[in-house]
């Protein structure tokens, strides 16, 4: 029935049709619902089932555990702070009322802008925002006013993405850019010692407690399973590892970046511990805040991270290192993951450039060695 409907309205979007100016919108919806039947006619092309749409959907699936747990935890924290125990479903339901509007706002605003730009510029609508729009609510505290999310999403999509030419051309991860916008524009809402726990009750996040040397640090198991206040998606490290497993199994997330980011974090946390600059153990550093979430879902963004394999190791390691470095030595920022990833996004092209040039030089040397051998013989 849907197919028939699409076929019936299709002529209007074709060339010379009445609604031709909306044709990329139409195509986006059509290919979202059905596999397109267009086939290349001439020449040979390498075909792979793993197109952008499939990639993006896999990432969304990998994010689902975090998302579902985030919803539950939002409700759980609410009732726990009020001193009530509660069943699973009421907590889940309460979380839905908080988190789902965030998701809807982020999608509506972001996709709306993407569609408008696609119409004006006459290019296809890209699937890139499916993931960004899903990530944005996950990396915000659940009490951020919805209009702020709308403003931040608009900023991230326009300034972070469309200015550079849309999906695939952006320098910075759009979702992180949205968070950075919120962080600098509305600092009191975003993190620190007064983050939302429940309506009208607020408490410090684990990282704020860590940097101010007060309050009780959550235990490692609380940090791991995620029954702590924080941004929606980042609290449960278990769900993040689940998502990481999906990304690694499907080969979409780069294991190089994930592992080297964790390694960088471990090294820096260990140095901090050794020099007595931080009270937290290495384990607590790894498990608290958005460290793992960033390492698994944000640093591995194929567009904004380094492209070369060697570059990925360097990129990931520096992300982990910088994140913990900022946490320990900069009292103004309790969480360094966002800034670390954005900073390394900026440097990713430079890393790639150096890696590629080193390879070129090595090969040139090898060539010269062979040549001189031949001449000598």
């Amino acid at each position, binding site marked *: 029935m849907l197919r028939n409907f699409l076929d019936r309205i299709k002529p209007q979007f074709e060339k010379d049709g009445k609604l031709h100016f909306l044709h990329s919108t139409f195509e986006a919806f059509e290919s979202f619902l059905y596999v397109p039947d267009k086939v290349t006619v001439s020449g040979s092309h390498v075909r792979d089932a793993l197109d952008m749409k499939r990639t993006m959907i896999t990432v969304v699936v990998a994010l689902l555990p975090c998302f579902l747990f985030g919803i539950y935890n939002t409700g759980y924290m609410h009732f726990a702070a009020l001193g009530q125990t509660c069943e699973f479903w009421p907590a889940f339901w309460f979380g839905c009322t908080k988190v789902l509007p965030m998701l809807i706002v982020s999608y509506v605003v972001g996709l709306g802008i993407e569609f408008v730009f696609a119409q004006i510029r006459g290019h296809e609508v890209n699937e890139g925002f499916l993931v960004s729009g899903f990530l944005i609510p996950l990396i915000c505290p659940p009490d951020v*006013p919805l209009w702020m999310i709308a*403003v931040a999403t608009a900023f991230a999509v326009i300034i972070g993405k469309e200015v550079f030419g849309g999906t695939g051309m952006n320098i910075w991860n759009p979702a992180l850019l949205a968070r950075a916008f919120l962080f600098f524009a*509305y600092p*009191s809402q975003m993190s620190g010692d007064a983050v939302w726990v429940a309506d009208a009750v607020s408490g410090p996040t684990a990282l704020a407690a860590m940097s101010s040397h007060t309050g009780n640090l959550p235990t490692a198991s609380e940090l791991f399973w995620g029954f702590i206040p924080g941004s929606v998606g980042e609290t449960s490290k278990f769900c993040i590892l689940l998502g990481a497993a999906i990304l690694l199994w499907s080969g979409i997330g780069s294991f190089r970046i994930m592992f080297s980011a964790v390694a960088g974090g471990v090294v820096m946390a260990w140095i901090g511990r050794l020099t007595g600059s931080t009270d937290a153990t290495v384990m607590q550093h790894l498990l608290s805040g958005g460290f793992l979430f960033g390492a698994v879902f944000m640093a591995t963004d194929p567009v904004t991270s380094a492209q070369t394999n060697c570059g990925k190791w360097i990129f990931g390691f520096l992300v982990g290192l910088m994140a913990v470095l900022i946490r320990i030595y900069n009292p103004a920022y309790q969480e360094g993951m966002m800034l670390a990833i954005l900073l390394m996004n900026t440097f990713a092209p430079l890393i790639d450039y150096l890696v590629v040039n080193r390879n070129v030089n090595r090969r040139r040397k090898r060539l010269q060695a062979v040549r001189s051998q031949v001449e000598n013989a």
Partner: protein
Amino acid sequence: MKEKDMKRQEKAPAKVQSPKPSGEENRLFSAKNLKLLSRPFGADNPVTVQVLGICSALAVTVKLQPALVMAVSVIVVTGFSNLIISLLRNTIPPRIRIIVQLTVIATLVILVDQVLKAVAYDVSKQLSVFVGLIITNCIVMGRLEAFAMANKPWPAFLDGIGNGAGYGFILIVVAFLRELFGSGTLLGFKVIPESFYQAGYVNNGLFILPPMALIVLGVIIWVHRSFNPNLIEK
């Protein structure tokens, strides 16, 4: 709309004095940035096209009032330095012209600074070092080198005023947006009603920080170029 206003403002003096036919001027637009710079008439904005004076555009645009004062100061300095150098242009030995130009600019800037201190001490404190730094503002030097050294006093004076005004206009637009969204005020008066704040509106802290001035400038350049496709670099 704003961009169009600005262009009218910029083009008006250009047409009066431009010795060249308008066909020549059109080709000017398609030339690259460097060529524009070397032409006696950029006929366009020093900030958004030549990308000069960015530094002070970031520093003094948090509030509208300092931006206004800064704009007037720069207009005075560019106008009169162009006039003076143009009067002296036949007597300045080419080898030491930069030093002569700098002396003239520095004298004018010190004059402006002293006047500000006498008349508007508070604003002068807010602007602090940036009035003194007008000396290093590339727009002033650029207009002297590119225009005043080769043209008669009256056109040179108008060119100076025009370029100073073009710079000031961008400054005021950026400052307007930054003060409105960053502090919710304009010239120190509350503009955003209290009911907005009670409804949950919060001032945007990012607009107070210098990076936002860069982004706002970038957006202005974007809008400007989409109105005027000739400016887009190939």
